[in-house]
């Protein structure tokens, strides 16, 4: 629109409204945009930077101030600042795009960090860097869900990344000691769960060192405990089988 046409709708600028229902009544306060989340997380400490005014409204856009009686009835106090703080802490608000964006970005990073920590390149047994994982996540168009926990999403991401690149969860190194009697039978059962058998020693009892996928640990543990009735033992040698130290390429 090139010509400025007056609208008869009043727009509130730079205002974020925080609402709360208490005692059957609706209360609103007028805050600055992008500030309420900072206040809740504790980054913003100055209340005046958050509140436009210390008064409490029933409707901010119409400018209707809440009645004193209602306030003291619902909140048990008539200290406006105290009431504002309560509403700020517990009220509902529309999260602004900036706030949402920064939150999602943070979660995205967090997921990438978790993936990078848990996984290795199966060829070199070395971890991938976080930035590489981030790029890979963007390549597969992974979208972060704000409602699910980052760890849950990280496991999901690992599954999806396996299709496009060389990645796997870092193996766990285990050692079982099984009584000879049950050793043979159990070995057959364990076989599908074990990735690599590093050493096997069968004299009076079966001793095995092997690498497994961390996802199977609980299953293996359960199996050994139930089948051997507590006679076999299981020992975690390392949680993450990765190469350590720097390597010079030559």
């Amino acid at each position, binding site marked *: 629109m090139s010509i400025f046409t007056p609208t008869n709708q009043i727009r509130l*600028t*730079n205002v974020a409204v925080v609402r709360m229902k208490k005692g059957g009544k609706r209360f609103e306060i007028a805050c*600055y*945009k*992008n*500030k309420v*989340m*900072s206040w809740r*997380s*504790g*980054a*913003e*400490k100055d209340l005046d930077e*958050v509140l436009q005014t210390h008064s409490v409204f029933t409707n901010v856009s119409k400018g209707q101030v809440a009645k004193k009686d209602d306030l003291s009835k619902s909140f048990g106090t008539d200290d406006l600042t105290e009431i504002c703080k309560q509403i700020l802490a517990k009220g509902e608000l529309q999260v602004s795009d*900036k*706030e949402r964006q*920064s939150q999602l970005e*943070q*979660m*995205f990073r*967090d997921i*990438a960090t*978790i993936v*990078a*920590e*848990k996984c*290795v*390149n199966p*060829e*070199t047994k*070395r971890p*991938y*860097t*976080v*930035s*590489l994982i981030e*790029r*890979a996540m963007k*390549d597969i168009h992974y979208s972060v869900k704000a409602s699910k926990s980052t*760890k849950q999403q990280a496991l999901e991401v690992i599954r999806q990344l396996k299709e496009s*690149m*060389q990645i796997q969860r870092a193996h766990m190194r285990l050692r079982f000691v099984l009584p000879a009697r049950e050793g043979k039978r159990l070995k057959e059962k364990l076989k599908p769960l074990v990735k690599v058998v590093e050493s096997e020693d069968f004299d009076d009892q079966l001793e095995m060192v092997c690498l497994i996928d961390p996802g199977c*640990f*609980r299953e293996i543990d359960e199996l050994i405990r139930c089948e051997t009735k*507590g*006679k076999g*033992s*299981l*020992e*975690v040698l*390392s*949680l*993450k089988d*990765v190469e350590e*130290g*720097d*390597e*010079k*390429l*030559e």
Partner: protein
Amino acid sequence: MGHTSLEKLIRLQRKTSSIRNICILAHVDHGKTTLADCLVASNGIISTRLAGKLRYLDSREDEQIRGITMKSSAISLHYAAGESEYLINLIDSPGHVDFSSEVSTAVRLCDGAIVVVDAVEGVCPQTQAVLRQAWLENIRPVLVINKIDRLIIELKLSPQEAYTHLQKILEQVNAVTGTLFTSKVLEERAVKEVEVQEALSEPSSGELVYDWSAGLEETDDSHLYFSPDQGNVVFASAIDSWGFSIHQFAQIYCQKMGVRSEVLQKTLWGDFYLNAKAKKIMKGAQSKGKKPLFVQLVLDNIWSLYDAVVTRRDKEKVEKIVASLGLTVMARDLRHSDPKVLLSAICSQWLPVSQAVLSMVCEKLPSPSEIGAERVERLMSVGTRRFDSLPEKTQELKQVFLDCTSEETAPVIVFVSKMFAVDSKALPQNRQRPLTQEEITQRRDLARQRHAEKQAASQSAENPESANAGGTPAVTSANTLTVKPTAEEEEKEHFIAFARVYSGVVRRGQRVFVLGPKYDPALSLRTLPDGCSAADPLPSVPHLACCTLEHLYMLMGRELEELEEVPAGNVLGIGGMEEFILKSATISTSPACPPFTPLNFEATPIVRVAIEPKHPSEMPKLVRGMRLLNQADPCAEVLIQETGEHVLVTAGEVHLQRCLDDLRERFAKIGISASKPIIPFRETVIRPPKVDMVNEEMGRQQKVAVIHQAKDEQSKYPEGVHVDSTGLVTLTTPNKMATVGIRAVPLPEEVTRLLEGNSELIRTMEQFSLFAREGKTLEISQKTLEEIQGFKSKLEGLLQGHKWRNAVERIWAFGPRRCGPNILLNSVEGYRRPSVWQCVEREKEKSEAVMLRDFDNSIVSGFQLATLSGPMCEEPLMGVCFSVESWEIKFSSQLTQQDSVEEDSVSQQALEADNNASGRTAQSIILDENLKKSKRKGDTTDCYGPFSGQLIAAMKEACRYAFQAKPQRLMAAMYTCEIMATADVLGRVYGVLSKREGRVLNEEMKEGTDMFIIRAVLPVAESFGFADEMRKRTSGLASPQLVFSHWEVISSDPFWVPTTEEEYLHFGEKADSANQALKYMNAVRKRKGLYVEEKIVEHAEKQRTLSKNK
């Protein structure tokens, strides 16, 4: 000047005395490649018209675009002076600092060097560097003062002024040489003095006379300096293709003036003038205000030529000059609109630069057979080993070096200074050559046949009965088969070794030894049978390999010519060595040959970047490409770090750019991105500081009520955690069964360092106690035991005082990863557990009743997790001691039984939940029989999960709170930085250092030079771009080197807010002035996606809230 045939060059290769191996060295943009062009043009390889514009030896695309040389490349030239013919192996080298490694590789193969200096700019930083390099390699330099035309056209100097200017430049160059000489003499004297002092170690010599003379006077240095009358200086303008030495003009004028040419040569440069009346050459031109001879006879002529041709464009005068010089200039050139064309047409006939330079090279620079004994010894004695200490057989080889014969009996000695990659297309065996007549007919026949077949096939398609399709498909399939391998071949990069034969004759197909840089002849002489050769089957010797020389090439700039054999003294390329040689090596037929001393690199690689492929699936290609790059570049380093980063270390930004281009286009052929490498930090606690941020004493001041701490102290801690004022944290597990009390104490710095240095020993101890718990024993060698004992006593020595009483004995564990620089201390009353020092004291303590409490392992696991990632930014802890002061468990016996069995699985889950799982070595507790029996009974767990898991989590949390209760600090990795700089840029060096939080440790002057050596420490976090900034700010006069040295506590508190009155006054309420530690901490937290206490907008009122069209 016709094209020199290859046969002629090959014939010349045999005459060692007529070979000159030279390289061209100079500062960047002083005209090395232009000069090389002129020399190449003299052999008819390129047109003289194009000389100076083509830059023939810059064969890479980016070299042409940027206009700087990046790789040294060699070419063999022919030069005839009178009857004698010479073969000149010319190596052009880059001048940019970043590529000084290429200079080193070039200098090593040469016997002489042409140092080019810009007549306007004079001596520049790289000029000094190359002179130093030539000096260190003991090769003889000659000087070319280039771009004299700029003095005439740009600066518009008069001949007289130009003369003084040239004199000054010559003085500068000689001054550099002089410093090199004096520093060497002083060094030798210092060595001698040390020897003398060792000899006179007894202070009996009371009347020791100190020798003040410093030995400078005794050593003759006149032969080192450049002087036109010595004939080792050429004045030139390579772009206009002229150049001359005094010698040439002396020849011209001796007849005209009737003066003997020797006299003229002596007097043409210097303070001499011509007395016209007396027809005599007199001294003292300057004092008498006369024109020096050089101005009168040489410069004036050149000036008048330029004046006529370029400035005034006086046709008649030009013709007169041309006629008087006896030259013939083509009419085409005379008419040309650009005067430069005419100028170079005249000059290249009158004073051809190639003539002047090459004759100087042939006369003044040594041939390979004149190699000095000193240089040989230096080449042969690796590192600090003296030549005398080499085995006798090796010493005998010195004579071989000196002889430099190409006889059959002489052992072959070749040095490979670098490997360079070429496309397989460029190799002679793959190159397209003109077809011979026979081949053409053959092809014609083939084409005809195919045509006929096609016709037959089409006919047969019409009448399918007569189809005899047997022949055609077979032919086509054969064709496709031959096409495929060539396509693959083109993909592959071929490496060619850039080498020189020092002795013997190298032949194609010869079996030779390849000696790595660390090869020791003394060792192999013992193991190898006498008189063995590379063809025999041999026992394996470290750093020794056998191989066959597959291809030998003569290097002709961008082309290669295949050779059958190469005699001694020549520069050559060897193909097919990429399997055996990484970067440089020595090749010999005699196992007694020592490896040559490693190249002295002026610049060490310091610019670090992390490299990633654009598409994560292309990782293997990147790794392969980086390997190739490492081989192809003498100075680049590549490594994979523990974090999984692929790091490329280069000498400078330009070098980095080239390496990245190489990776993208040649070696990896994928899209890559380079970024700042990840910087590690450590977290630690310190003793409470006594003074505040404004250096006022704390305690006496009244704390101001702080709005920042509106949320009250205790509310930070969740339920079940209690922190008292001394930093003791007591924490109860959620099921209220166990309580631990923990205190964090900073470890003394020396202890941290000791722990860090002995992580291997700690690992061994840990393994031992692990085995001991299972009832097995691990055999440890006596030496290791002694080392452990020593480590323990050292630790005891460092942990002195009231606080640490008996601390060493009470150590419970080390962490993280069970061997790190943090300690868990057992201060629980009445709990005696097996000591970590079991392995050293197993004899005496066996009998005593020491028992592990249940869940001992959970405590250790919790500690390991806590030390692996600290509360500040999830980086490992360092130098923290957690002392467990109390540990109470109140629970029914039934619960113990159930839980301790489950401990393993549970601890595992707890670790997973903390997602910090790495490198922990958990192990099961060996259970008592009765526990096992009763375990099935109580399989119900309470709502908080298994107990041992709770204990791990509780322990970890307690450690974190204990850590937070103390003043926390971040530790930064530090580089030690050594900077060589001249006195005039010292201030700038300090400026750059202080801008990047560097701290100067000391500075000292290098004896005999005007160079300062500054040692400083610099945080790794600030080092990105440091080298580049340093070079830019000091115009390349300071060159830094960075080496990782240690971890250092950053003194500022990342959580600091002003609390005292003084601090309020000084910093204000918000204190938003830069806090280094906070900056680092937030950067790491942001990278990891942790919560950062940062506002989305700083000022609520100042945000723009309306979109444009509202």
